[in-house]
Structure formats: C-alpha cells, structure tokens
C-alpha cells in the first residue's frame, strides 16, 4: 500500500458515557484532509459530544482520537491545533472586535503590531474590514458570527470545528452564510467539521456527511449517496422525506419483503388506467390529500396495501385548480425500479 496522508481526524472505538447514558457509543470515523465534513443528526444523537471531544472540552470514556496521526485523546484544549466556532459565538464582551480576533495570537505572545495586522487580514477574509474598533455588542448576529469565524481561523488550525454556527441566524442570512463558509473553506484549505441538525444545510455544503443517531453513526457518505441510497430507515427518514414500503406490497413489487425507500419526487402520479413501462413498477391508490405549494404540489396517496405515500410533482403545466381536483380520485403511482433503495430493518 502506498502512504496516503494521515486522516485529519480519526476516531478509534470512541465512547463517551454520562452515567448510564451512552452519548457516544463505540464510534469509528475518519475525516479526510481538507474536506468539508458534516455531522448530521437530531439533538441528543452524539454529534456535539463528538465535536467537543475533538476540541478537548470533553474526554472519551474509552477509545482514542487522532489528529493527523497524533493521539490527542488526553490533551487539554489549548494544546490541540484545533479551533472552534461556538453556537453562541462566545465573543469576549469586554474586548473590541480586533482584540477578539487577535486573542489566539495574544496568548501566544505575538507582538501587538503583528497581531493587529493579521487580525485585519482575517477581518478582510470574513468581509468585516473596518469593524475592528467596535465592541461585539454593537454588531448584528451575522457580523458576530463572522467575528467568531475570523477569531477561530487566525491561528491557522489544522481542523476547524463549527458547532451549529448558523442556528441563530434567519433563513436568508443562513443561506448566504452557507455559501460564504464553503468559499472561505476552499480559500484557506483547512479541514472543516460542521455539526448541524439541518439536513438541507448538510447537503448543501458538505463533501461528506456522517449521520448520527443515538450515539452511533448510521451512515457516512457524499450528500448524493446519503440522499439517494440511505442505508437505514432512520437515514431515509431524517435526510429529506422518504416513503418506506415493506411487507406484502414490497413482496409483490420486488419479490422479497425487505423494506425499501422511495423518494417522493421519484414517484410519478398517473391515471389509474395507465400502464407501467418495462423497467417500472406501479401500485394503485386513492389521493387523500393535496397541498399546493406553488413550485410543486405534495400529494398524500393511500395505496391498496394500506401504505400512505407522499408524492411530489412539479407544477410544470398544472395550476392549483387542476391539482386540487385530483383529491379523492383513484390514481396509479409509477416509478423506476432503480429508484427503490433497500434499507433493511
């Protein structure tokens, strides 16, 4: 085997227990050098605990954590080449913006003119040039967010940790920051580990995603892989909307009663008399509910097997009058075999 660069972060059988609660349970994980890696999961799934263990605020109960091959499991936070952007920003209220950003250099005894110069550079990178003299209390939420980012980047950490940093921003600002974070990451070339419970955010920004549930990792993969090929019913349900079909209907369609998932946008809503093409399967059903959402319409269809399936179709030619009239009618649902994804369980 050739000698690939050591992974930025490697978890080897890492567990963190709080009393009887297994917050993180025997997790193995590799984050590659230079990637934008997201840890996605509901609250209490262990993603934040993993992040805190990488930062050093928490120690594993058992197992080891490696930072570029070096075992850092027992190092205090100030001896790790890792910096964090906190959920509540954690800016120092008694310092101005420039002193906040330069803090990492000040504690390393870098002289004042040098640290002010580099702080200004960082503020430029995060598009806050000229804000150095202000106090954090004089900034908006989005600006504080950028200060926190500049402060965490000034030491050129090997890995930057982001703990739901966009959670407190409104939707528009959040989308703007998503794009910006991604472009900053590409410019500085530092490995980013991003914790979020927002699946859309994770899909938008990440090179790879780890989906957490109940202290374990359910699946690791590229966004498209996670979305198109969820490995478990949990991933299928948590990332996007999924229809899970099992039992009799599955058996009739696939020949086995293993559960499979099908995404709502992959299902075509057809007339009940329409015939499926060769590589397609179909089920009959009755439309129970129609929600017109402008760009697309969401239908709830009760199938003959008793499953409720969600179907999403774009309103390319239809109007709200057309789609609403479908309610209560018998329809045929058709989809490609390829889009069915076995999830086990």
């Amino acid at each position, binding site marked *: 085997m050739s000698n690939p660069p050591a992974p930025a972060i490697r978890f080897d059988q890492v567990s963190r227990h709080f009393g009887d609660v297994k917050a993180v349970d025997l997790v193995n994980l590799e984050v590659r050098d230079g990637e934008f890696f997201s840890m996605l999961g509901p609250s209490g799934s262990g993603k934040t605990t993993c992040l805190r263990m990488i930062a050093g605020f928490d120690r594993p109960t058992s197992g080891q954590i490696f930072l570029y091959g070096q075992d850092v499991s027992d190092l205090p936070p100030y001896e790790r080449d890792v910096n964090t952007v906190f959920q509540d920003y954690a800016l120092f209220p008694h310092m101005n913006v420039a002193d906040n950003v330069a803090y990492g250099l000040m504690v390393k005894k870098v002289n004042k003119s040098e640290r002010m110069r580099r702080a200004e550079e960082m503020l430029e990178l995060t598009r806050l040039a000229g804000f150095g003299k202000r106090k954090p209390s004089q900034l908006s939420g989005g600006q504080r967010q950028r200060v926190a980012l500049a*402060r965490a980047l000034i030491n050129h950490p090997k890995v930057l940790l982001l703990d739901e940093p966009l959670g407190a921003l409104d939707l528009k600002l959040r989308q703007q920051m998503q794009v910006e974070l991604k472009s900053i990451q590409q410019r500085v070339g530092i490995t980013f580990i991003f914790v979020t419970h927002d699946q859309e955010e994770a899909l938008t920004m990440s090179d790879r995603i780890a989906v957490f549930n109940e202290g374990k990792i359910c699946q690791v993969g590229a966004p498209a892989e996670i979305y198109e090929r969820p490995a478990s019913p949990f991933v299928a349900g948590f990332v996007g909307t999924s229809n899970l079909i099992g039992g009799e209907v599955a058996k009739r369609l696939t020949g086995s009663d293993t559960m499979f998932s099908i995404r709502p946008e992959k299902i075509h809503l057809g007339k009940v008399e329409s015939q499926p093409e060769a590589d397609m399967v179909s089920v009959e059903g009755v439309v129970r509910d129609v929600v017109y959402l402008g760009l697309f319409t969401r239908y709830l269809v009760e199938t003959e097997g008793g499953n409720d399936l969600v179907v999403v179709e774009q309103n390319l030619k239809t109007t709200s009058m057309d789609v609403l009239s479908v309610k209560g009618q018998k329809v045929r649902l058709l989809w490609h075999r390829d889009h069915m994804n076995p999830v086990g369980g």
Partner: protein
Amino acid sequence: MRSNPEASWGLKLAALGGLLFLHVPILIIFLYTLTPDETTYTFPLPGITFKWFGVAWQREDLWRALTLSFQVAAVATVAALILGTLAAAAVYRSNFFGREAISFLLILPIALPGIVTGIALRTAIGGFDIPFSFWTIVIGHATFCVVVVYNNVLARFRRMQGSQIEASMDLGANSIQTFRYVILPNIATALLAGGMLAFALSFDEVIVTTFTAGQQSTLPIWIFSQLVRPRDRPVTNVVAMFVMLITFVPIFLAQRLSAQNSDTEGETK
C-alpha cells in the same frame, strides 16, 4: 428613580417621613459636634465651637483605634476577595453533591445575629487556646465579608456566557491566561463592588468584634466605650461623623457599580 409622572401625596409624605426617620438622628450627631457643652445635649445649642475637631485630632487612643480598624478592614477585605471568588467559582462551575447546602452555609453568617457568630467564634477560639489578637478580629470579620463578595461574584458568573472560558482555552490560553484575560475582566466590577461593601461592613462592625478582640479596640468599639464613660462627649460625635463620611464613599460607589449592567470595561492595552 421611577419615571411615573405623579406619585400620590400620601406616598410622597410617607417617603419623606421614612427618610427623615432614618437621617434626622444622624444630622443631630453632626449638629452636636459644634456644641460647647461637654457632657449634655442641650437644645438649642448654647453656642458654636470648632474646638472638638482639634481635640479629636490630638487624641492618641483615637488614632490607634482608627489605624487598627483600617488594617482589619483591609486584611478582611483581601481575604474575602480571594475566598469569596474561589467559593463562587466552585459553586458556579462544578456540580457536586451538597452544592446547594454549601451555598446556603456560605450565606448564613450574614443572616445570623452577630451575637451568635460572636459567641460561637469566642468559644471556638478559646477552645483552641488561640490568643485574641489582630488576627482573631480579622477572622471574625471575614465570616461576613466573604458573603458579600461571594454573592456579587456568583451573580456575575451566572450572567457571564460560560462558553467564553471554553473559547479562551480553545484559542490556546492556559488556565492562568484565561483567568487574567477573560474571567477577571468579566468579574472586575463585581469584585470592586463586593470589596468596597466588605470594607464598609468590617469598618463599622461592633458585635462580633467585641467577642473576638483582645485588649485592642477598633474604632466602633472605641466609640462604644466613650458612651459608657463620657469624656469630651462631642469628640465622639466628631469621630462618628467622620466614620459616616468615610463609609459613605465605598457604599455609594459599590451601589453605583452593582447597578451597572454587565457592560464592563476591559483593560485598555
């Protein structure tokens, strides 16, 4: 002060009455610093004289008491600042068994009648055969001085964003740097307010001091002894006036500082 446009006449009268009730006796003391009559309080004053200020200035015993009071208050305040801050940090940061009980026990000395604290301390000090001295007075005063610092600092800790400490460590600061650059600026005004209050409390304490002092007398004790065996009574009034003016300053400043919100000014580098 309220911005209510008009309080009722009854309320205004009650407020005025309350203020007069509290402060007229103090003004009477000020008035009688000027009386030429040595032993009795007669009204109206038989005349006006400033000689008692001079007499007070030359009294050796008075200066000794004043110096002792200053020293005791200073040492007790320093001890309270250190112990109170450490106790507040422990109660705030960690979650150990009996934390609430410890918090309660820390606050108890200020609620207990001074005479109980005094007797308890005297018994304990006597039981251990420790000679009464400057230090036993300091220990007595520290019991309640710690409380005011503890309360002030704990309240400030609770208002402070806990993640600041983590952020500091994350950025490479060790514990000492984190304390110096992040924690201390955050609690500085709380320390100042708590310290000044502690100083003022110690400076005019009588009851606990009578039980823990040996032969020495602090200023309040000296005043007390003057009442029992009057000699140059107006001198006592002069001293009382100065004590009031001296304690007024720190209490006033402490109140101003506590009233301010958490917008603390850091050191300017």
